[in-house]
């Protein structure tokens, strides 16, 4: 089967400092990949580069997504093409209601697909249906985007937006951070319910615990800007047990 996304020898910098030093990674439709690694290894940089964050510069390599050059696309075009990032730190946007925000997002995507704008009735119904998926309070939908949301609410809101936009490739950047066990379960269940045979997920995480709920097919270890180890789900358990030191110092084996 063709790869959904193929990352080849990706190098990226921020403020002139090289963070990614040659990433190679391929994800096939339907697969769940976990990317693990110690702090500062480049996990968040990878997710930001995939969605085209302007602060990062790709200096070398390429990313092929659905057969096209991803790096040539603007952030919104990548979104329209089905890439969704659940942000590690979702930004608060004062004065912009969730409803207006989601309507703008949905209709922008529909426009890109050559579809007419969604009617207000259909849109509100869609909001209602998807909200239920992550137990998001209807009150939150009337508030400004992420404003005054608790940590858990923000993460649930991310998954709610994912449900609304139905991406092909979802990147969950440390979605488990700051969540208690119940919130974690709700978020993970939401993600699992959204899973379809043709959609793929990149789970970026520090710990095993999210992977108890979202089962990865393949686990990668990112260290110092490179993928240093790739294996099956058992690798995550091993990392949980042994920490990252043995990866950092392979000669200590």
């Amino acid at each position, binding site marked *: 089967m063709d790869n959904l996304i193929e990352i080849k020898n990706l190098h990226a910098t921020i403020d002139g400092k090289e963070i990614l030093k040659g990433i190679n990674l391929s994800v096939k439709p339907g697969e769940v990949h976990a990317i693990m690694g110690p702090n500062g290894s480049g996990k968040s940089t990878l997710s930001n580069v995939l*969605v*085209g*964050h*302007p602060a990062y510069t790709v200096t070398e390599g390429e990313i092929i997504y659905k057969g096209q050059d991803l790096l040539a696309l*603007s*952030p*919104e075009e*990548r*979104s*329209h093409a089905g890439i*969704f*990032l659940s*942000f590690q730190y*979702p*930004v*608060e*946007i*004062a*004065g*912009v209601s969730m409803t*207006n*925000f989601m309507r*703008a*997002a949905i209709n*922008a*995507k529909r426009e*890109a697909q050559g579809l007419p704008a969604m009617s207000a009735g259909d849109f509100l119904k869609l909001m209602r249906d998807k909200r239920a998926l992550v137990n998001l309070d209807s009150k939150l939908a009337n508030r*400004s*985007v992420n404003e005054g949301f608790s940590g858990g609410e923000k993460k649930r809101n991310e998954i709610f*937006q994912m449900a609304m*936009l139905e991406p092909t490739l979802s990147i969950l950047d440390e979605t488990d951070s700051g969540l208690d066990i119940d919130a974690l379960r709700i978020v993970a269940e939401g993600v699992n319910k959204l899973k379809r045979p043709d959609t793929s997920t990149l789970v970026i995480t520090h710990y095993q615990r999210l992977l108890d709920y979202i089962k990865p097919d393949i686990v990668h270890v990112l260290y110092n800007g490179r993928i240093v180890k790739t294996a099956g789900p058992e690798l995550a358990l091993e990392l949980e047990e042994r920490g990252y030191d043995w990866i950092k110092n392979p000669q200590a084996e």
Partner: protein
Amino acid sequence: MSNEKEYIEIFDNNRPLIETLCSALLNKERAKAFEQFKSTGFPKRDDEEYRRTPIDKLFAADYGMNLGRLPLQGSPADFFSCDVPNLRARQEYIINDSFYRDAAEKSPLPEGVLLGSLDQFAQTHPELVEAYYNRQAQESDSLAQFNTTFVQDGLLLYVPRDTKLSEPIQIVTLLRSNIEMLSNRRLLIIIDQNATADLLICDHSSNDKQTLSTQVTEIFLRRGAALNIVEIEETGEKNSRLAHLLVNQESDSRLNHCCITLTNGLTRNNIKVTLAGSGAEAHLGGLAICDKNQHTDNNTLVEHKASHCNSSELYKYILDEEATGVFSGRMLICPDAQQTTSCQTNRNLCLTKCARMYAQPQLEIYADDVKCSHGSTVGQLDENALFYMQQRGISKDEARHLLMFAFAGEVIEKINIEALRDRLHLLIEKRFRGELNRCKRCALCKQ
């Protein structure tokens, strides 16, 4: 020859003409104001209050003045259509500097309410007009004296005790002339005890001649009165406006004022609110959306003279291209104004390198049992928010619109004439999309 000299001469030469066409009452105040103006002249460059908005230069152009009060041909409907459609309001017009008596059928006003030509009422209701006319303006600066010197008409609204106007009154001030023109208009608004009114004042121009308007609005809120007043300025690059809004509030009265500058040339709004009776409340809002060479200067003074009063101010500017924004907000808390709460907020967005913002909040406090605060910021649209929206598929331009709209929305939300709020949202959206005074280059208008 300095500019004031020229106007002093114009007045001297045309005094009989001005006065014969106008009521004795207005003429009486005119004489006093002229003497004052003669001694002070226009505000000068070194006048701290007008440092960022040079005045004398504005008067240098060769304007025509309709001192003979020649009537205009045609009705307002011929050359004006409202950008706030379907607003259920009673419409009145001031064309240039005169109240326009239209033939349209209107529902009768509640008993005792006076609405119409100021000059006319000065003749039919002299005791009422005399008690209020120029009471506040005579204490104001030399521009107000200039207005009193030349003004011949305008509008009067009087709402008697315990009367509540059920529908908003929309006053459209229209600038229309075939030559460069200076017009001076006057509004006198008296809301008697426990009466309420909603007022919408819209400035429009319908030609591309350079104009300068002076406008003095004197408002008296008697005990327990409430007034909601929204001013919308939607003129053109060649139209300059020098306005005074002077409000005197008795105890337990309530003022909500919002001034929205959408399209203009140069605007200076002098807003002075005196909280003279205890328990009075004043809430001022302002929104300026400026591009090209637009210049908007809001200069506010809220004077707390009595105890237990409450005031708030929220002024926001969005400056694009080479626009200039000036905000000077003074809060003066007099020694007797204990238990005052007062807060002022000024937020500004600069969208280009050439846009300029001058902000000068001033707190002057002589009473100790008060809660006063002010905050002012200048900044740009939040880059992180823009990116977050882009990740969700919203284009950068659309994201900018959403953020600017949200930024502006905070001012609109404070307006408590509900019917108007939705329409204002629409109007502002039109402005952002360049559908009002279209301009191709700027970010505000880009689709």
